[in-house]
C-alpha cells in the first residue's frame, strides 16, 4: 500500500486521500471517493485563508473511519500555530466529514474556510489506464447543495455535496465565513453523498453522520460479534495471537455484501481496489478460513452459483457451467468496453468451486446447501469435460475468446509473462497449467462423494472416480520431467512441457494428484535453496531463466501460495517441512505488523534478514489475510472426519504450545491444542522471539 495515502471503506465504497485528508492533489497517487467502481469525487481540497494547513497527525481509527489533525503553516518552525483543525471522516454511501477549527488566540479572528470539490467520474479501469471520458460532466447548485454529475446517453452518476453550517456554494466548492471568539471553536459537517452510484441505486443521504449516535457503535458491535464468533487462539509464541487477530479484523473489512445475498457476506479480493467478487480469490479465501469463519464459504458458493455461466459468450469468456472471474459495475463495463459484466476468464475457479462445496459440507455438515447447488455442481462438472478441455486431450486448458480485453493467463499466476520455459522463453496458448489438473482431480473425487451421499447418484460417483484415477495416471506420465524430477508448470499450445521449476508443484500435493514417489521428489525441490527462500517457497526457482526475485510471479514469495503448499505437505505426511514453511511465513508476518502483503521479494532470508515487500496496490489482500489461518490448520493438522474433528499437531519447537478453542463445525464447537516438538532445521527459517 502506498504510504502517501490512507483509505477507509465500507463494502465497495471507499475513500483514498492523502495524509491531510485531501483528494486529487498529487497526480502520482490515485485518490478519490469511489463507489460501485466509479470515482464519485476526484478533487477535495481544504484551505484556510487560501492556504493548505499542514499535517500534524493522522489517526486511522478503523477500516471505515479516520481523523486528520492539521494546523496552519506559520512559515517558521519556531512559531506555534494559533489554530488547530480536525477532520473526522466516516464512509458509507459516500462520506461524512466533521470539520472542527479551534482558535488558540487571545483575540477574535475571521477566517475564510474553503472546500474545493470536483469529480471526473472515472471508471476504475480509467483511473488505472488514464483514458478519456466519452460523456459530459456537469455541475450545478440546487437546494443548498452542489451537484456534480456525469451523463453518457442514459448512464448517469451524481454526487451531492452539502454542509450543515451556512456556506456560499458555487459550482467549484463551498466557502464558509468563519468568525471565532478568543479560544473559540467552530464546526461544520460535510456530506458527500454518492447519490446515483449505480443504476437502480439512489442514495439521498450518507449512511453515517455525526448525530447518529448508534451508527458507529452498531458497526463496532458488528466487528465485535465477528471476532467473538471466531475461535479463540492462544499461543506461547505471542506473535501468532496478534497475527490471528489482525487476520480476523482484516477479514471483517474485506467482507463484501453482494446485492444478491440479502445481508450475507463473502470475502472480496483486496482492499480497496478489489472490493468485488473474484471467483478465484473469494474461493481460496473461503477455503483458508473455513475452520474459523465458515459463513464466508456458504455465501461465496451461493453468490458464485447465481452467476454461473449459461451460454457461450466470447466477449465475456463465458461458457455454460463456468464460474466467474470478476464482476465490475463501472461505465466501461456498462458500455461493454471491458468484459466484466461479469467476466469469466478463469480456468481454475470452476474446479475450486466444487472443491469448496465438498469441503464446506465436510466442515459444517450443511447438506442442504450441497443439495441446493446440485444442478450448479453438475453444470460445473460438465464445463470441465466439455468446455474446459478445449482440445480434447483430457486436460483443462485456457485461451481467451476475447483477444482485445480478455486475460492472457487464466490461472492464479495471471500476469502476462508468468508461463516461461526454463531457458526464459515464452510458452504458447492454449496452456494447461499443472495445478488446474490437480484441482480437477480433487474436484472429481470430492463430487463422487457428494453424488453418493447426497445426490443419490452412485453411477455418477463411479464415473467420476474412474475419470479421476485415469487423470492421475495420465498426468503423472504426461507432466513429469524425468531428467529434472518435478512436474512441468504447464503443457503449452505446441504440446511442449513448460519446464521451469515453480511453486505450482506444491498445489499438486494439496490436490493429491501426485504419485507418492514423485511427490517425494517434489518435496525435495520445494525445500531446496532454489525454491525455499527461508521465508517461503518462491513462485519460481532461483536458477530458472525467467527467475527474478522481484518479478510478480517469477520469484516472489506469496503467502497464500505457501499456505496451500503447507497443507499439501501435511497431506503427504511431510510434517516438519509443512511446519518449516508455516514458521517462515509467520515469521515474515511480524515484519508487517501481522498483516501479510500479497507478495514479498524472493531474496534469500539469510541475505536480507528482512522480507522485502513487493509493491502492490491493495492491502490487505484477502488470500494473504487467509494464509495464517490455513497455516494454523496445517500446524494443528485439523481435519474433519465424519462428525469429528481430528487434531494431529505438527508444531516447530519454537511454538511451545498452541491452543485454538471453540472451532465451529458439524461437531458444534471443539478445541484443538498442540505442543511444539519438531526440529525444523536451520535457525534462519525459524520464528524469532522478537525483532
Amino acid at each position: 500500500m502506498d504510504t502517501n495515502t490512507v483509505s477507509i471503506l465500507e463494502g465497495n465504497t471507499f475513500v483514498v486521500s492523502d495524509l491531510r485528508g485531501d483528494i486529487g492533489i498529487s497526480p502520482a497517487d490515485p485518490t478519490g471517493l469511489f463507489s460501485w467502481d466509479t470515482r464519485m469525487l476526484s478533487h477535495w481540497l481544504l484551505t484556510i485563508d487560501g492556504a493548505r494547513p499542514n499535517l500534524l497527525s493522522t489517526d486511522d481509527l478503523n477500516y471505515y473511519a479516520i481523523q486528520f489533525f492539521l494546523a496552519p503553516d506559520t512559515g517558521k518552525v519556531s512559531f506555534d500555530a494559533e489554530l488547530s483543525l480536525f477532520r473526522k471522516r466516516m464512509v458509507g454511501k459516500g462520506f461524512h466529514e466533521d470539520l472542527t477549527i479551534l482558535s488558540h488566540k487571545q483575540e477574535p479572528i475571521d477566517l475564510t474556510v474553503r472546500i474545493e470539490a470536483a469529480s471526473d467520474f472515472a471508471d476504475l479501469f480509467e483511473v488505472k489506464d488514464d483514458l478519456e471520458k466519452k460523456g459530459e460532466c456537469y455541475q450545478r447548485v440546487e437546494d443548498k447543495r452542489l451537484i456534480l454529475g456525469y451523463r453518457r446517453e442514459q448512464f448517469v452518476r451524481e454526487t451531492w455535496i452539502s454542509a450543515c453550517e451556512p456556506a456560499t456554494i458555487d459550482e467549484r466548492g463551498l466557502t464558509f465565513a468563519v468568525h471565532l471568539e478568543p479560544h473559540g471553536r467552530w464546526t461544520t459537517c460535510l456530506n458527500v453523498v454518492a447519490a446515483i452510484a449505480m443504476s437502480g441505486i439512489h442514495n439521498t443521504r450518507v449512511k453515517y453522520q455525526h448525530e447518529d449516535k448508534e451508527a458507529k457503535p452498531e458497526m463496532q458491535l458488528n466487528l465485535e460479534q465477528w471476532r467473538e464468533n471466531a475461535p479463540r487462539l492462544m499461543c506461547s509464541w505471542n506473535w501468532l495471537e496478534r497475527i490471528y487477530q489482525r487476520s480476523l479484523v482484516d477479514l471483517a473489512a474485506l467482507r463484501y455484501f453482494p446485492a444478491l445475498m440479502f445481508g450475507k457476506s463473502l470475502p472480496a479480493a483486496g482492499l480497496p481496489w478489489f472490493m468485488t467478487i473474484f471467483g478465484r480469490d473469494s474461493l481460496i479465501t473461503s477455503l483458508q478460513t473455513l475452520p474459523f469463519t465458515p459463513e464466508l464459504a456458504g455465501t461465496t458458493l451461493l453468490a458464485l452459483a447465481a452467476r454461473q455461466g449459461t451460454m457461450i459468450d466470447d466477449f465475456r469468456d463465458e461458457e455454460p457451467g463456468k464460474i466467474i472471474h470478476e464482476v465490475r459495475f463501472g461505465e466501461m463495463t456498462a458500455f461493454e468496453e471491458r468484459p466484466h459484466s461479469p467476466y469469466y476468464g478463469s480456468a481454475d475457479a470452476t474446479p475450486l468451486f466444487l472443491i469448496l462445496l465438498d469441503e464446506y459440507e465436510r466442515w459444517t455438515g450443511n447438506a442442504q446447501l450441497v443439495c441446493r447447488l446440485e444442478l450448479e455442481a453438475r453444470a460445473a462438472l460438465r464445463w470441465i469435460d466439455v468446455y474446459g478441455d478445449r482440445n480434447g486431450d483430457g486436460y483443462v486448458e485456457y485461451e481467451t475468446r476475447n483477444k482485445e480485453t480478455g486475460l492472457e493467463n487464466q490461472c492464479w499466476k495471471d500476469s502476462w509473462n508468468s508461463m516461461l520455459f526454463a531457458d526464459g522463453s515464452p510458452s504458447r496458448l492454449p496452456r494447461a497449467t499443472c495445478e488446474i489438473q490437480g484441482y480437477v482431480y480433487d474436484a472429481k473425487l470430492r463430487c463422487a462423494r457428494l453424488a453418493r451421499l447426497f445426490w443419490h447418484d452412485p453411477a455418477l460417483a463411479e464415473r467420476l472416480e474412474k475419470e479421476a484415477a485415469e487423470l492421475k495416471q495420465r498426468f503423472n506420465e504426461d507432466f513429469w520431467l524425468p531428467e529434472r524430477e518435478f512436474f512441468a508448470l504447464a503443457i503449452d499450445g505446441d504440446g511442449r512441457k513448460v519446464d521451469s521449476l515453480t511453486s505450482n508443484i506444491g498445489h499438486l500435493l494439496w490436490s493429491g494428484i501426485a504419485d507418492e514417489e514423485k511427490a517425494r521428489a517434489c518435496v525435495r525441490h520445494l525445500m531446496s535453496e532454489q525454491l525455499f527462500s527461508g521465508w517461503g517457497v518462491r513462485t519460481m526457482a532461483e536458477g530458472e531463466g525467467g527467475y527474478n526475485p522481484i518479478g510478480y510471479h517469477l520469484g516472489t514469495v506469496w503467502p497464500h501460495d505457501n499456505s496451500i503448499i503447507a497443507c499439501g505437505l501435511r497431506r503427504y505426511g511431510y510434517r516438519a517441512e509443512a511446519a518449516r514453511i508455516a514458521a517462515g511465513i509467520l515469521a515474515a508476518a511480524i515484519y508487517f505488523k501481522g498483516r501479510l502483503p500479497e507478495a514479498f521479494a524472493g531474496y534469500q532470508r539469510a541475505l536480507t534478514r528482512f522480507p522485502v515487500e513487493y509493491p502492490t496496490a491493495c492491502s490487505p489482500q484477502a488470500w494473504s489475510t487467509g494464509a495464517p489461518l490455513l497455516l494454523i490448520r496445517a500446524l494443528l493438522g485439523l481435519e474433519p472426519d465424519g462428525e469429528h474433528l481430528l487434531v494431529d499437531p505438527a508444531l516447530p519447537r519454537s511454538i511451545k504450545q498452541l491452543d485454538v478453542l471453540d472451532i465451529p463445525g458439524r461437531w458444534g464447537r471443539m478445541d484443538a491444542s498442540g505442543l511444539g516438538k519438531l526440529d525444523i532445521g536451520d535457525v534462519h527459517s525459524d520464528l524469532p522471539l522478537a525483532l
Partner: protein
Amino acid sequence: MGDSIAAFFEQLAARGYEPLLHSVSGTYRFDIEDQGSWGVIVKDGAIEVTRKLPKADCVLISDREIFARILQGEQNPTTAFMQGKVQVVGSLSLAQLFQRLFRIRPETSLNGREKDGYQHCEHS
C-alpha cells in the same frame, strides 16, 4: 417486434418450470413501453405468467426496442441495466437472477443437465 415480446411470455408460460431458477421465488412485473405489462410469478423455479398485474417484488421497465433486442440476444441484459436502458424498481437480486432466462440458447443451455440422470435431493 411486439410479436416477439408477446411470444416470449407465451413461451415462458408454456415452459412452466425453469431449472436455472430452481432456488428463486418472487413476483416480477415487466412494463414494456407500448406493449403493456406482464406479471411473472416464480416459485422455486415454477413459472406462472399473468396479465393480471400482481404486487411485484421486482419491476423491470424498458422501451420496446431494447427489450426486443435483449430477447434477440443482441443486447446483454446486465449491461442494458448498467447503462440505464432498463430500469429496475424493487429487488435488484431478483432482476439479476431472471436475466439468465434471456441468455439461454437451446444448443448450449444448462437444461441438458437433467439428462445426466439427475434426481431430486431428499434434503432440499
